[in-house]
Each structure stands twice: as structure tokens, then as C-alpha cells.
């Protein structure tokens, strides 16, 4: 919608400055150990299934359940389970050093049809803007994921903090 009404709204956008402060966001160094959960949850909503589903104890919410989820990067194995359980679809798994030049971003996906493996796609940022091209590498249906699929897309490394969706 190209509108004369100003659309500078940051509604629903976690800005670069903000996400570094979120307790579910890994530190820069944590990305070097392999795939890691990125929990973009910054509102005190009463909710804790991410804590329950993590069998490695890497996500801590505690009581009250309005606490923000805190990520323990040491314990996270990048198993993708939390992606599928989060009702807010706000957890991603980022494998920054997938190759020398590319990262692999795992995103929750609830649309039909599913992309096929190796589809060349437009990669979108948090504002839905096309930022680069990417390739779908994984289309995963985890047991118990209840129709939330996990899509792994390979993207140029510099976009690992911004790429959050795709279009094909």
C-alpha cells in the first residue's frame, strides 16, 4: 500500500538497537558456535512454551511467566523445536557461519504451498522489504510441530541479522 499517509511506523519492528538488549538474543560471539536460537520476544506476554519444549534447558522464563525468555547460548544446540512451538512465531535459528560466505536462517512458516528445496527466493527483512536473493535449503516438518514448518534458507552472510522471511 503506497500511501500519502505517512508510513514511518515502527509497529511490529524490532530495530537494530533494540534487539541487542533482548535477553533472548545471542551475543555476537555466540553465533560462531553453530546454529543458535534467536528469540525476538520483547513484551511481557504471559507465555512460556519455549521454556517447556527446550530439552537442553537453554531457554529460561521462570515465574511469573510474563518474564522475557532468556537464552543460555552455551546450552542451545539449534535443534529448531522452539521455532515450532512459539505462538508468536518470533523464534528463529541462525547459523551464521554456514559457509564462508553464507548463513542459514531457519524460520517458522505457516503458508501454503511450501517452497521446494533449492528454490531461488527473494529474501525479506523485518519490514517485508526485499534485501537479497537466497536459496531454500531445508523444508522441515518436525514431529509435533502442528503444521508450523521450519524453512532453512541460505543467504549472504551480511544479512544474518536482518533476513527474516522470503517470497517466491
Amino acid at each position: 500500500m503506497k500511501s500519502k499517509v505517512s508510513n514511518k511506523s515502527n509497529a511490529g519492528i524490532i530495530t537494530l538497537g533494540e534487539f541487542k538488549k533482548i535477553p533472548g538474543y545471542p551475543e555476537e560471539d555466540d553465533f560462531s558456535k553453530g546454529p543458535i536460537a534467536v528469540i525476538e520476544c520483547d513484551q511481557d506476554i504471559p507465555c512460556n512454551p519455549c521454556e517447556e519444549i527446550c530439552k537442553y534447558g537453554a531457554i529460561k522464563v521462570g515465574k511469573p511467566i510474563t518474564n522475557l525468555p532468556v537464552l543460555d547460548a552455551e546450552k542451545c544446540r539449534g535443534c529448531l523445536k522452539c521455532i515450532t512451538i512459539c505462538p508468536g512465531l518470533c523464534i528463529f535459528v541462525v547459523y551464521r557461519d554456514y559457509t564462508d560466505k553464507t548463513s542459514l536462517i531457519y524460520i517458522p512458516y505457516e503458508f501454503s504451498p511450501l517452497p521446494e528445496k533449492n528454490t531461488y527466493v527473494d529474501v525479506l527483512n523485518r519490514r517485508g522489504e526485499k534485501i537479497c536473493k537466497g536459496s531454500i535449503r531445508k523444508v522441515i516438518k518436525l514431529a509435533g510441530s502442528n503444521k508450523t514448518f521450519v524453512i532453512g534458507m541460505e543467504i549472504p552472510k551480511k544479512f544474518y541479522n536482518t533476513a527474516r522471511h522470503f517470497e517466491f
Partner: protein
Amino acid sequence: MSDFVIIGAGPAGISAANESARYGVKVTLIDENNLPGGQLFTQTHKFFGSREHRAGVRGFQIGYDLIEEINKLNVDVLLDTIVYGISADMEVKYVTEGSSAKSITAGNILISTGALEKPVVFKGWTKPGVMGAGAAQTMMNVHRVLPGRKVLMVGSGNVGLIVAYQLKQAGADVVGIIEAMPSIGGYKVHASKIRRIGIPILTSCTIKEAKGSPQVSSAVIVGVDKNLREISGTEDEIKCDLVCIAAGLKPFDELCWLLNLEFKYINELGGFVPVHNDDLETSMKNIYIAGDAAGVEEASTAMEEGRLVGVAVAQKLEYLSDRQAEKLKGKINDRLKYLRLGSFGKKRAEGKKKLTSISK
């Protein structure tokens, strides 16, 4: 004669039926639809909350689970049935589709009739192609009819955000969400998933007109200032065939007004709400209220409120000892407390407090 007549089999009503029938109460559950479960069947998204609140499970699946539970219990369920009145001597008057009016005398009554969508008046709001977001959600998720191809969503509370997302999932093109306030009303995570799939959200913006004859073919939107006054010159015409209104809900309490119950106006709960005590009993003895009808919240709190009434009625009819009942209520109240925490829940908790404090 029935121990307990429940009017409305949504999340609150069906939970109250299950909870009270479990302890032996003879329950009659009435609903106007052909399936109990109410709005749970429009909710294809996963619920927030904790394990006790079935977090991560989709709404309609919770609906099926509640139906499975009720089928195992001895509950008299009257479907396709509207209640058109309650008399002062607890006679519930109803009509089941295809049969003539009947009535049943109730020992206790729960009014769990849910909420209604608030209208927004603008030029063209009565045209075909303008509808409530909840209506669109019912058409799409229950009846499998896509109500439009190109949609403008008016309102950014959780209902507006969720329904916009579901319209997109169902194959519609959502051209945008507009919100009159300077910031969105719903959860940020819901807005985030809308934004990253490319749906814009315009804040400080309202709808001025729906155009088209007779069916909507475009909408005129306009920017507003902090006092919600239109800023002339900022009008813009947007092509769409569906304008969805998500301007909030109000408790649907016509049976309570009919009974002349005591009401209080609580803005955070959607407007006029029947005053009730901690057991959710209203100003009239043996008449209970639960769910959105007792103040607009969400489905998880509705289910807990329903259970609370179920326990209270089982206690009153001596199917539960006071000690057993207080223990059960304590657990339910703890869970309710958790659902009303945080910056979103806090306002509702304060509203509820205003409501129950007067009746003491």
C-alpha cells in the same frame, strides 16, 4: 428442571459444563450453533500461556478436546437453540430450530454469551464488503469462504493483526492495516509476523469512506492527529473489495439487561459489564456470568472463569465440600492471576478488580 443451565457453549460455557458435570451436577448446555466451542473454531492460531492453558495448541484443537470431554460426561446439550428470555423466577425460554418454543426452570444459570464486535461508522459502512474482522474470520475458518480478495484491515488490536494474517494464509491479498492511535494495540509479535510478510501497518490513520456500488471497490483513508482529528489533504484511495473492522469487542449481555442486573462501565473490559463477586455470581442470586460476557478478555481466561463457576455451582449444590471447592478455586485463581499479568493483562486485572470490589 435443571440444576444448572448454561447459555452459550463457547470456551467459558463448555468449560463450566465440563467442570460442574464432572462432580455430578446435572447440566443443560445451550448454544445457537450446531457445534459447541464457540469462537474456538475460528481460531486457527496457537494459543499463548503456559501448559495448563494449552499454550502452543491451536484454538480449534482445544475446541475439539473440550467437546470430547463433554461427550464423556452426562451433559444435556441443546444445539441450534436460541435463548430469547429468562424470567425472574429462573425460567429459561428457548427455541430449537425446527421446533416450537420451550422453557426449562433452572436452579442456577450461567450467562456465557461472549462478546459483540463494536461498529465503526463512516460513509459507506453499510455496503456489502464491509464486515467485522470476527465475521470474516468465521466465514474463512469455519465456513471456508474467503470473504474478499483484497483486504483493508481497520484496527490493530490482536483481532485485527491475527485475522489479517489468517486472511493472507487463506490466500487473500491484505493491502494494509490502519490504526487510528499512534501505536498498535495488539502484541508486537503478531505485528512482526505481519510486517515481515510485507503487509504495511499505518498508525495515526483512519478510514473515511468505503466506495463502490453496491460492492466495495475502494476505501478512502486519512491521517489523524493525536486527538484523532482528520488531517485534510492526507486522504488516499486504496483499491480493495473487503474492509474488515476490528475496533474492539463489547460484552454481549442482553439477557443480563433483561434481568435488570447491576452493571458498571469499565472501559478496559469493553464497556458495561455485569457486577459480580469472586465466584462470578451477579447481583441476582444464582445467576452467574463468565468469559467475555463478564468483561472482554481472551479465550484462556474465559475457560478458567468457566471452570471457576463450575466449581462454585458444584459447591453450592453440595457435590463438593467447601474444603475441596476452595482448594480447586484457589488453583484456578492462581492460573487466572498469571493470565492477567504483564502490561496487557494488568489493565484487565484492574478492570476486574473495580468490578468485583463493588459487590462486596
